């Protein structure tokens, strides 16, 4: 293994320890046609229901082309007439009550209840899919009604409420879709959801029998409606809100984190061996509270060292993290302008590639970062693992003892980043670890190559503020003067205030009750005027106006939807 470049400081170099000797096995290329470690798939039942939907559409086309609708009408009518033979006043009253679930009032209550619950639970993804399913189902159903124009059943008395054409049965279609959507957005997967499916089957069976008895729909209308009503939400939830990425749970926790047990855990172990030659023995979430943009993992791996197994660190990124990153950056653009000089990533693969590249860049430049070990593909274009050295025995800088050497290492890291044209952009206590008297910088996801001078200056000020948390401003300032001019430090503190500091850093300064920023300013022989943070551009203006219009429309529409779900 190549020797790592030493960390350079103002007082000399700090030798970096070699990463542990990992046992490697021969890597294996996945041959064409072989599924990836964690294939993206619909379950068998989802495929069955989609196929059934396709069959319904094909049947409609076949009936229309062959002109055989009268045959179906006749067959349906005989079934309904058989039901009509059973009619009695008492049974009719029972049937009218039993069909209550498919009435507009019941469907409306189902809609409002779900809408409210999903908003209260902040389950936006499920709400999005729920609304989308409702609209698609309604649009699909009403389009088919318009195209097929099938009258209500002939030769039998229709009892109770009905409206419009009959194929497919819109009440059954919408009710089924709403019930299945409710199941997939509110009921946790597993035993409860399995039970829920049977409950839905029972409710639909009762409703369907009621409608047949009352001759409100043809049997084939009900069959087509039920198939569409199951297939659309099933496909939507399994594709757009899969349970392993967006689990329905009722315990508190950050939803950004993926479940790494079960098939995903097995896929990670298999992928690590095939793609990096690492023999994983355990996959465990690690320090989840410190990460919202990925799922950090500590993975036990076989080692060639005498003391047995060791660990590697990995960040599991999924498509959902890219979307969150996009919204986060949009929010920051609206609030602060082009504060970060950044554009969102458009795929998870690009995100991981970028972070890996920056990590290599910093490592090659002698910066104290964890040794990059590579990228592992779990699901193509959806889930990737960024694997690095695990910094064992380290502590966050906010909890570690800080001496002049650590201060120098932190400051020299900023100097080195300036030299190679890089900004970390997230210098905060959680991203600076101390191990055996050595500083390690982690989490390079926000780093930027060739950043603005302003952004580089912010890195210096944030580093000095972090270092002063466990020491004092005077000491940090004096050490900084050995590597930076007064003008550079003055520029740094002119660029940094309030929102340019990471939230964790701001919080810790506030908790200490010390105005470290003011203390540093007081140490400077002169001050530069504050660098303006709020930058307005046409892009920001347009985005702000579009967002406000969207919010207004959303509000109006939400109000109208509460009154008229479909």
């Amino acid at each position, binding site marked *: 293994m190549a020797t790592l470049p030493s960390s350079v400081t103002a007082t000399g170099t700090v030798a970096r320890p070699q990463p542990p000797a990992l046992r490697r096995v021969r890597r294996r290329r996945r041959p064409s046609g072989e599924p990836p470690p964690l294939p993206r798939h619909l379950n068998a039942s989802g495929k069955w229901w989609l196929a059934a939907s396709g069959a319904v559409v094909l049947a409609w086309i076949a009936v229309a082309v062959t002109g055989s609708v009268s045959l179906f009408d006749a067959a349906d009518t005989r079934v309904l007439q058989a039901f*009509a033979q059973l009619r009695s006043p008492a049974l009719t009253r029972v049937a009218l009550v039993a069909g209550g679930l498919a009435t507009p009032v019941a469907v409306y209550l189902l809609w409002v209840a779900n809408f409210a619950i999903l*908003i209260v639970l902040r389950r*936006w993804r499920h709400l999005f899919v729920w609304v989308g399913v409702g*609209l698609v189902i309604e*649009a699909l159903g009403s389009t088919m009604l318009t195209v097929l124009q099938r009258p209500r059943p002939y030769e039998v008395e229709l009892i109770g409420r009905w409206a419009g*054409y009959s194929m497919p049965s819109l009440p059954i279609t919408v009710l089924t879709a709403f019930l299945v959507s409710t199941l997939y957005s509110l009921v946790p997967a597993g035993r409860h959801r399995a039970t829920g499916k049977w409950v839905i089957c029972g409710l639909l069976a009762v409703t369907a029998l009621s409608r047949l008895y009352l001759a409100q729909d043809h049997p084939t209308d009900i069959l087509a409606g039920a198939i569409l009503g199951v297939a659309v939400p099933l496909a939507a939830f399994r594709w757009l809100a899969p349970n392993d990425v967006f689990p329905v749970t009722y315990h508190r926790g950050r939803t950004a984190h993926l479940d790494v047990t079960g098939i995903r855990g097995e896929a990670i172990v298999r992928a690590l061996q095939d793609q990096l030659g690492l023999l994983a023995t355990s996959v465990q979430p690690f320090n989840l509270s410190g990460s919202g943009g990925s799922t950090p993992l500590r993975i036990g791996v076989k080692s060639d060292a005498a003391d047995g197994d060791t660990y590697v660190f990995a960040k599991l990124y999924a498509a959902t993290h890219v979307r969150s990153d996009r*919204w986060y950056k949009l929010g920051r653009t609206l609030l602060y302008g082009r504060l970060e000089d950044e554009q969102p990533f458009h795929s998870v693969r690009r995100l991981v590639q970028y972070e890996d590249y920056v990590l290599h860049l910093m490592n090659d430049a002698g910066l104290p970062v964890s040794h990059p070990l590579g990228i592992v593909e779990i699901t193509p274009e959806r889930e990737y693992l960024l694997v690095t050295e695990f910094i064992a025995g380290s502590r966050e800088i906010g909890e570690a003892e800080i001496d002049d050497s650590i201060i120098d290492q932190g400051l020299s890291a900023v100097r080195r980043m300036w030299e190679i044209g890089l900004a970390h952009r997230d210098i905060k206590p959680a991203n600076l670890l101390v191990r055996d008297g050595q500083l390690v910088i982690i989490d390079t996801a926000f780093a930027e190559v060739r950043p603005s001078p302003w952004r580089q200056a912010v890195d210096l000020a944030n580093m000095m503020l972090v270092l002063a948390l466990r020491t004092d401003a005077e000491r940090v300032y004096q050490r900084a003067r050995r590597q930076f001019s007064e003008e550079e430090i003055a520029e740094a503190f002119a660029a940094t205030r309030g929102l340019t500091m990471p939230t964790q850093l701001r919080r810790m300064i506030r908790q200490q009750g010390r105005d470290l920023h003011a203390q540093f300013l007081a140490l400077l022989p002169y001050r530069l005027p504050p660098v303006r943070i709020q930058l307005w551009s046409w892009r920001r203006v347009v985005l702000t106006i579009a967002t406000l219009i969207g919010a207004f429309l*959303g509000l*109006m*529409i939400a109000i109208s939807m509460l009154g008229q779900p479909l």
Partner: protein
Amino acid sequence: MRPARAAAVPVLAVGGLLAGCASDSTAITSSPLCSEGPHGAGNGVILMAQSVPTATWVPCIGSALPQGWNFHHLDARNGVSRFWLDSDRDGQQAVEVRLEKSCDTAGATQVPSDREGMTRLERVDRISPAYSGTRYYLFDGGCMTVVFSLDGDNAGEALAVSSQVVGAIARSDLAAQVHEESGGRLSLDPDPGEGG
């Protein structure tokens, strides 16, 4: 802005926009024509007949609408069917045609009928600043109501349109059509002798 909250905005906007476009999903936007070529009346007319099983006559669109007039939509449901005509001068849904089993004709005056087998009554509610009135056609088992809610000051055109364009087809003709189209297998209405 939290990502989740930011996400809520497009959720509501997109969802709501689509919901707004898709309101009243059982509305029928094709005209209930009295005659659709060789096939007889359109299915919308049959659906109207099913909505009022006792009605011996069913309203329909008998001829092309004059320039400036458009069909709005048909709402057929148990007990009542209604369709509306839009006018570029007299406003949206200026004329409503309704079929029910019975109707309240209080205040209406009987006038000579222009339709065979039907009794015609008229009630004028207002003539200024815009015309508002109701025309009734009573027949065995049903009532056809034509409601005028006009924005313009000249009611003549709307009244003429309702007479010329809005037609009526006998239930017996519809029953014969259903019987023929089903190859003699089905009838429009249940056999009166059966309980069903």
